[in-house]
């Protein structure tokens, strides 16, 4: 009923970002879970090897258990700090430096938000911050919009991965613009990870079928009625979309073609 690890490994090459390789093409966020246990179970079920975390003030009046590190086994999952909530290059750089100072990684998921209602990126601030952080030696994974030109500039800036959105963060609207995503993938050499907007398994599957290198998601799993089961679904869907892309789909035809022989019929 299920697929052996070796079978799958033989069916795809590993994902490589900034010199590290991963067998899973999923990156998961750790926000919005109803409790930490569900989060850990969902992350485990997803098969991901990288999880994002946010940098926030310690709450001096609450239990120290709130820190997510208490729940994440760093043998199992690499941390990817983000700059979520930053509305300027300056803020994003500050949060990135704090994230690195924690001593776990020099990777950063760079977000420079341009608008509170949509959480769409400010590409001008994004490019500034990306250039600065690359100079400072960060491995930058840049959350961006569907614009090819910005994606090309991010690649020129030396980012480790370009992460265009499928649709707005937390919207669950799925892949609104497959054409633009396919276009970006076709023109870039660095990995393209679709970040944000996936709502259900088929969104992940069709996204991978565009040929992108991976998907980053959070709400689609955390806000599902059953996050652990959805995490499993996302894992399968991401593999399925990747394999289908590699396998090369049949041509579409506007007419029918029999799957059984038309000869050898009886009198």
């Amino acid at each position, binding site marked *: 009923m299920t697929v052996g690890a070796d079978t799958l490994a033989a069916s795809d090459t590993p994902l490589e970002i900034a010199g590290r390789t991963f067998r899973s093409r999923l990156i998961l*966020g750790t926000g*919005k879970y109803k409790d930490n246990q569900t989060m850990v179970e969902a992350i485990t079920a997803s098969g991901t090897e990288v999880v994002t975390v*946010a*940098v926030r003030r310690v709450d*001096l009046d609450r239990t120290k258990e*709130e820190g997510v590190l208490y729940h994440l086994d760093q043998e199992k999952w690499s941390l990817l700090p983000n700059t979520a909530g930053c509305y300027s290059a300056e803020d994003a750089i500050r949060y990135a430096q*704090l994230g690195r100072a924690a001593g776990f990684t020099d990777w950063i998921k760079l977000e420079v938000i341009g608008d509170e209602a949509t959480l769409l990126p400010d590409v001008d601030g994004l490019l500034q911050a990306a250039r600065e952080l690359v100079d400072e030696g960060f491995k930058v994974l840049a959350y961006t919009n569907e614009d090819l030109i910005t994606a090309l500039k991010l690649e020129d800036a030396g980012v480790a991965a370009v992460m265009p959105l499928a649709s707005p963060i*937390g919207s669950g609207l799925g892949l609104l613009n497959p054409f633009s995503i396919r276009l970006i993938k076709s023109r870039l050499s660095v990995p393209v990870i679709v970040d944000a907007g996936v709502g259900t398994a088929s969104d992940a599957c069709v996204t991978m079928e565009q040929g992108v290198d991976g998907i980053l998601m959070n709400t689609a799993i955390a806000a599902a009625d059953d996050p652990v089961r959805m995490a499993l679904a996302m894992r399968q869907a991401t593999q399925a979309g990747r394999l289908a892309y590699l396998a090369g789909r049949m041509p579409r035809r506007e007419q029918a073609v029999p799957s059984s022989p038309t000869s050898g019929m009886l009198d």
Partner: protein
Amino acid sequence: MDNSNPSTIAVTINGETREVPEGLTVKDLLAHLDLHERMVVVEKNREIVRREDYGGVGVDEGDAFELVHFVGGG
């Protein structure tokens, strides 16, 4: 925390003014606040304090500290 101590100083921590004992290092401050060093990153007056310097950097009247850590996020 104990505010009866006459020799305290006022510092800003995560946006709030707090009285803390005089003469603390950052290391002492974290202990005072019952925070694990490994889990927290410290910014003093907008400068990040490297973990190895916690013992050497002092806490003075009017200093502004940001004590941050990782939380769940996407």
